[in-house]
């Protein structure tokens, strides 16, 4: 794939005329997808896919283009040249963009992670025997993913990784479920079987008769996976500088009313772990670490170069959508072994589901409990709970209601496959909240 990327980018750039610039983004994968239901195979297949996105800049105007990469250089060059010609004509009839960002050459990068992964031919036999006797449902995504970026000034980045993720649920006969997500680069059968065994042990707790909890406010523990989902909301009308400026960010109270979250809450954008490329779709390299919220204070927002130009700020080379790519939340002091005792009476929520802003300016988020969620009484887990809806503000659960933060982080890998396999992860601990509102 890297050869295809190099050949295409070099050939297309050589066709440009004076005063024209192009930024080229490449995204591809050679993937295996196996979908399981009832510990059997529901759907199985392979996908080879690669796409190129072009930004053509000329005459203070910018046009976008894109096409599927077939792997045949002659066809792909023809597609690329046709796109550039189309954009060249279009820049003569669309309005000027006063905030367009011109490419630069700030140096190139190359990162290839080879691994001893799971062979496509071996996947079914590696996964299914361990699941025998349980109601197992989920998806294996397996294989190589590629990202590249180059521009007509000579800057070039390449990122390649070989990975797998088995995202799954185990289900009791009473329809209670436990979530698992076994991901990595090198496949280790023993580690996989041990991981599944731990899921099966959790499933035993789920066989207790579920409790129907009344609506109201409860002391609540959120496991790391649930915290990760809350942090994910910051990427959607939250931490983006553009969304703050455009009046559609839940961070408005922090910016305009000087509201502070809990001093125990700190989050950074952190590329040191290498879960995803450091370069964005304009080929800009983000700082290895950027403090966003520090001890409850909004220290930085994500600022793309376009926002920087539009609002007269300094870019921190965020992606154009100014979303979190590799967030990392700081740990606190609560050991996981002490969690249930610390709850005393209340809720232990492993996962949450279908989050949305119910009042974005107020920071209020609604969603539902899902998977291993329990009622705790007398410092012990009593039973799973029936699904409940919550509706509460992050200004409370990351603010004045935040009691404790776990002393250990968990890496929650991005397993989404919309359009293609996602990269990245959210690294965060669990949190204990004094009062959390269940509404339905």
């Amino acid at each position, binding site marked *: 794939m890297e050869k295809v990327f190099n050949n295409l980018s070099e050939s297309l750039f050589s066709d440009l005329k004076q005063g024209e610039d192009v930024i080229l983004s490449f995204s591809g994968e050679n993937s295996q997808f196996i979908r399981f239901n009832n510990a059997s195979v529901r759907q199985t297949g*392979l996908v080879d896919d690669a796409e190129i996105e072009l930004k053509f800049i000329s005459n203070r105007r910018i046009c976008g283009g894109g*096409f599927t990469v077939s*792997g045949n250089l002659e066809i792909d060059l023809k597609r690329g040249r046709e796109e550039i010609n189309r954009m060249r004509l279009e820049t003569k009839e669309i309005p000027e963009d006063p905030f367009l960002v011109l490419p630069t050459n700030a140096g190139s990068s190359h990162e290839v992670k080879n691994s001893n992964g799971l062979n496509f031919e071996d996947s079914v036999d590696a996964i299914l025997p361990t699941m025998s006797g349980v109601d197992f449902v989920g998806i294996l995504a397996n294989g190589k993913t590629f990202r590249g970026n180059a521009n007509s000034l000579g800057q070039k980045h390449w990122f390649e990784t070989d990975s797998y993720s088995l995202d799954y649920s185990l289900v009791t006969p009473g329809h209670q479920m436990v979530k698992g997500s076994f991901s990595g680069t090198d496949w280790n059968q023993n580690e996989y079987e041990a991981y599944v065994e731990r899921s099966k042990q959790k499933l035993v707790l789920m066989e207790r008769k579920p409790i129907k909890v009344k609506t109201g406010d409860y002391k609540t523990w959120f496991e790391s996976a649930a915290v990760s989902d809350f942090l994910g909301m910051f990427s959607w009308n939250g931490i983006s500088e553009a969304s703050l400026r455009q009046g559609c960010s839940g961070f*408005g109270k922090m910016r305009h009313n000087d509201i502070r979250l809990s001093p125990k809450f700190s989050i950074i954008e952190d590329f040191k772990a290498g879960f995803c490329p450091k370069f964005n779709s304009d080929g800009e390299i983000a700082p290895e670490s950027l403090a966003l919220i520090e001890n409850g204070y909004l220290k930085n927002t994500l600022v793309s170069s376009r926002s920087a130009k539009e609002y007269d700020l300094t870019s921190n080379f965020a992606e154009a959508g100014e979303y979190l790519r590799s967030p990392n939340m700081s740990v606190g002091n609560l050991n996981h072994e002490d969690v249930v005792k610390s709850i005393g009476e209340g809720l232990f929520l492993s996962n949450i589901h279908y989050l949305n802003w119910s009042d974005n300016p107020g920071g209020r988020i609604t969603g539902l409990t899902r998977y291993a969620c329990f009622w705790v009484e007398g410092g012990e887990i009593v039973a799973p709970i029936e699904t409940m809806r919550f509706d509460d503000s992050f200004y409370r659960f990351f603010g004045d209601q935040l009691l404790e933060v776990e002393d250990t982080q968990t890496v929650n890998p991005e397993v989404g496959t919309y359009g293609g396999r996602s990269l990245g992860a959210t690294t965060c601990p669990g949190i204990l909240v004094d009062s959390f509102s269940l509404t*339905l």
Partner: protein
Amino acid sequence: MKLDVDIKKLLSAIDVPADWVGLREVYEAHTPRMIRDGVPVVNASASTHGIMVEVLVNGQFGYFGTPDMSSEGISRAAKKAYQQAEIASKHSVYSFNESARPAHKGSFSSPYTKDRKSLSAGNLNDILLEAYGHLKVSDKIVSASTLCQVIESNFKFVSSNGSDINQDFLMFEFDLSATAADGSNQQTRTFGGMRGTCRQMGMEYFDKYEIFANANRIGEQAIELLDAENCPTGEMDLVIAPDQMMLQIHESIGHALEVDRILGDERNYAGWSFVKLEDFGSLKYGSDLMNITFDPTLESEYASYAFDDGGLKATKEFLIKDGLLVRGLGGQESQIRSGLDGVANFRASSWNRAPIDRMANINLEPGSSSFDDLIGQVEHGVYVESNKSWSIDDYRNKFQFGCEYGRLIEKGKLTKVLKNPNYRGVSTPFWNSLKGVGDGDTFGIYGTPNCGKGEPNQVIRVGHASPTCLFDKIQVFGGV
């Protein structure tokens, strides 16, 4: 650039001992244009083109999605798909035969009078820029945007048992959006909610004077919302406009009736369903006023088509008749697995994803009440328009929706404007509280380009049309 591919020739060149082979070629081009705050922020066009090779081996389907549409590429893909299917066939959820891909021949073309090229990039930018000016009715509008995305799609399907289908689509998504803000007090008003205005038609839609009038209204309503009272909290009558009914239908009916969900395929992702296989023919889903159809035939609705991605011919069918659940959203595979009657809804987002049960056009059929009749029945309640927030549980029971714009209803009349109108409920009790269905004059056609489901994940286009409806005793509430 669309390559000319002789898909029948590619099919004939495949040499694997499969029980059935199918090729589905998809070409799709998206052309989005967007003006925000007076400057162009998107002028782009991107296409995708590839083939999904599907084979049936020992009762198991296997696939290979590839952009290499050469004869060698497709033959290689077929061999790999065969290998995947053969390995998996020892552990199949269900052992299918050729009847899962019925043979059909035919074609479809979206209805339109003006094609994409009839409106140049420059002309469309001019309209969007002028519409932006109409949105910006006050300095309190801190941001406004106008968006048009045109989508052209071609789908071809051929199979070893004789299917030969060609479908051409021309579609667009359109939005006008204005955000008014005063510090952390922020209100956004759009044209039909979260990309709700999406249709299958041509550039004849773009009557600029109508667009400018709508832009003015949206800008003014955003300003009105800034100073409006919060929606009251309590149990009351709720009147819902079609651009919110759209999502109500989508989340609390459409997804719940997908038969692959009921069969458990989605339990690890989107979730299960409160509906069970034995509920078809017996579950009173809603009041007698409720008539829900799967209707791929409604002209200009976003997800109209003649055949699904498994080649099944698409026809209009009642899913819920006079409140009674009668049919599920199950394509041919789900019909075979469940033994239930279904519909032609086996759909994939593109050539690189395998089809699964999806919604297409799911509509609420009009009733007999005028808009004034519906409002006139309400002593104290709220009228809501345009979705801005949505959430429902994994069984499709407990939902909560937020809308952009509300009006108080007092003694049968619309009175004050309300901001942050929200409501929540549980699916079947909610639909059984349906006590008024608007007539054809209140009927609106909407949809969404962003319905997510499946593993691997797929986003697909769906259409929802509905009249304005009145519900009894709903939990309504406002913002912080």
